[in-house]
């Protein structure tokens, strides 16, 4: 009866502990649905950016502002962090909690590195280039799109940190496993969004 809340009979974790309970399966399914909604959210932000990206109001243009060194570095860091979160999920499927925690910690550190670069980039624009939220329609669209993504990364960093703490305290169970799994889904999603930002905002801004 109580399949909703199961440990397996011998107490051992199944191969995919995130899908062992109905709660876990519901979480994974609903998180896919949620990411569908997030895709519409970012899609609307991208559409807004594309509509306004040349409206610079005599302020700095994309071509004048962007440098490839910081954004290429940020891209590299975020892509590698996606790989490390894959390693984390693989470790979870092998029930190796120590490795799981290590890979999650590496993921968080890379996420923090990305955020640091983004804050540095934004402060350069605001202070040196006088390019703030109110400068032009392009600046508003830029900060809103890239800032929304940055806020997502920051939330992900906090979330995964809390999960690392729980893994130390509670270990890997059928309750903690779905949390780790959906946080990895989230992390991949914001990584994919960044690929689009790199293309649409930075590459197109430099050459388009």
């Amino acid at each position: 009866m109580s399949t909703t809340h199961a440990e397996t009979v011998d107490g051992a974790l199944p191969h995919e502990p995130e899908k062992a309970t109905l709660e876990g399966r519901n979480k994974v399914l609903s998180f896919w649905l949620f990411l569908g909604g997030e895709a519409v959210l970012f899609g609307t932000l991208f559409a807004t950016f594309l509509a306004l990206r040349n409206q610079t109001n005599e302020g700095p243009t994309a071509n004048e502002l962007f440098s490839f060194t910081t954004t290429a570095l940020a891209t590299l860091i975020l892509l590698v962090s996606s790989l490390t979160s894959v390693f984390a999920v693989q470790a979870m499927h092998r029930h190796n909690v120590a490795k799981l925690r290590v890979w999650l910690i590496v993921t968080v550190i890379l996420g923090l590195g990305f955020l640091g670069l983004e804050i540095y980039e934004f402060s350069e624009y605001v202070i040196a280039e006088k390019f703030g939220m109110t400068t032009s329609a392009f600046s508003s669209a830029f900060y809103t799109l890239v800032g929304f993504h940055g806020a997502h990364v920051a939330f992900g960093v906090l979330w995964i940190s809390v999960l690392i703490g729980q893994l130390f305290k509670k270990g890997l169970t059928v309750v903690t496993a779905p949390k780790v799994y959906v946080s990895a889904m989230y992390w991949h999603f914001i990584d994919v969004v960044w690929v689009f930002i790199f293309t649409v905002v930075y590459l197109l801004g430099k050459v388009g």
Partner: protein
Amino acid sequence: MAHAHSVKRHKGLMDWLTTVDHKKIAILYLLAGGLFFGIGGIEAVLIRLQLIKPMNDFVSAQTFNELITMHGTTMIFLGVMPVIFALMNAVIPLQIGARDVAFPFLNSLGFWTFLFGGLLLNLSWIMGGAPDAGWTSYTPLSTTTYSTTHGVDFYTVGLQIAGLGTLIGGINFLATIITMRAPGMSFMRMPMFTWTSFITSAMILFAFPAITVGLVLLSFDRILGANFFEVSNGGNPVLWQHIFWIFGHPEVYILILPAFGVISEVIPTFARKRLFGYSSMVFATILIAFLGFMVWAHHMFTTGLGPVANALFSIATMLIAVPTGIKIFNWLFTMWGGQIRFTSPNLFAIGFIPTFVMGGVTGVMLASAPADFQFHDTYFVVAHFHYVIVGGLVSGLLSGLHYWWPKMFGRMLNESLGKLSFWFFIIGFHLTFFVQHFLGLMGMQRRVFTYLPNQGFDTLNMVSTVGAILMGIGILFFLINAIVTAFKPKGVADDPWEDGRTLEWAIPSPPPEYNFKQIPLVRGIDALWKEKMAGNKGMTPAEPLGPIHMPSPTILPFVMSVGIFIAGLGFMFSKEDFSNSFMSLIFNNWIVVIIGLLITFGSMLLRSLYDDHGWHIEVEELDEEGVKA
């Protein structure tokens, strides 16, 4: 199965604040929706009283703008949406043979965020002026240049919070319907109300994020000085129209599809026939939802998108008449040759059909772009959307409320009062809005606060106002009916309409908190009717009796919503010049926002850190009056 976690049972108010039971959340949605529906209705009557005669000065032009804005916004987002969610919560888990929704905690969170968003929006009346830029809040009218009070800020922030609740509810119902169906209930055996709610939830998921972004952009423009819609700094006001309607058009199908579902339940029950063309109903619903995302620019024909865009959106819009027509004919063929009983829910359902057809016909007229240049922004448009939303949707909701009232509350509504409210409502409705078609064709603009005499508008406006009052009386009869019924003793039968076809009628009214003592086995469309026809007394159980796992009640969703509410207020007033130095300290330094967010994220952290194991109802505790398996 020794999972005897003790659980604190709350009583009275705390019970309602902490409940995660879908049946109680349904009642909360109904109460909140009823409250806002009442406020929106009073606003409607005030609008009609202002327009009862030419050159009236009952309210000022500014108040009139606030009234029309709040009437539209309140009715759409805070009036009918929660009543839809009330029915979905009350009925869907029962119709699919589940003990609760997939995420009881999120269900509660969705309700409380919706309520606090609605309260924030309505606080505007007492905090310096309501929004006044129309329910569509078109830029530049809604920018700080032309709307100088905080009204539109209440609109952006209040709707943002309420929309979050709706989105949470939508995801919850999608997951519930996908994973929680009883054994044997395949997708093509689901009751139509569950089907339409499923599609509506999917539309919520893909439409609401667009308005989320739109509201963010508008609030950034107004509060942070961004330039999305500020033409002088490179912004583009048409962008708002696109974003608003990419959400807004699917929204009207989000509203009407559950009403289609209600009608598809009520008509077969009271015709004693199975729904005609079940599969075509399902595919028509999906097609309407799909096309609903493709037609947003028909609200913008006069914006100047050009003939090619206008032609494409015009044709796409007309296409929607095809699946909708399929539905209308299916309902008619369901009634054809049936043993029809004219109960109050069935009266509302039968009244729905011709009324909705009239709204659909004017919809096709409006879909023709060249003709729309004449109709645009006149009372013809007002008449059209009230025919589909009031004559259609509200009729459907009233039908559903009369139909499921005994299941929700264990008491039958009074039939005579129900019929009285139907006749007042339907006659009042047509009196109010039928004449508005002609007012529009004669050139009366919508949203004008008054008009000059002797243009041929005088009599028709008088008729319209009288109709609105009759409609209000109809709603009052319904309210009286609900109150009178609340004092009657409980104890209606499991299947009080006697011809119930679906699973909710197989269990007691109101159902016990675990719904089904044993999850039923579903053997076909109209699961209960199938058993009745096979001569069985009830459903065949799909599992042996056993302890039932229940989620624990929790106050956290309420606290999280309070946090979002505080953060929203803080954001709105972050750039305000306060005369009081303490107020400017806490608001201008974002302290209020931070406190609000800390409350919300702190509650999320608590939820994550402390596992909710729930609790069990043991076999011996199961009410002997429960499901007769």
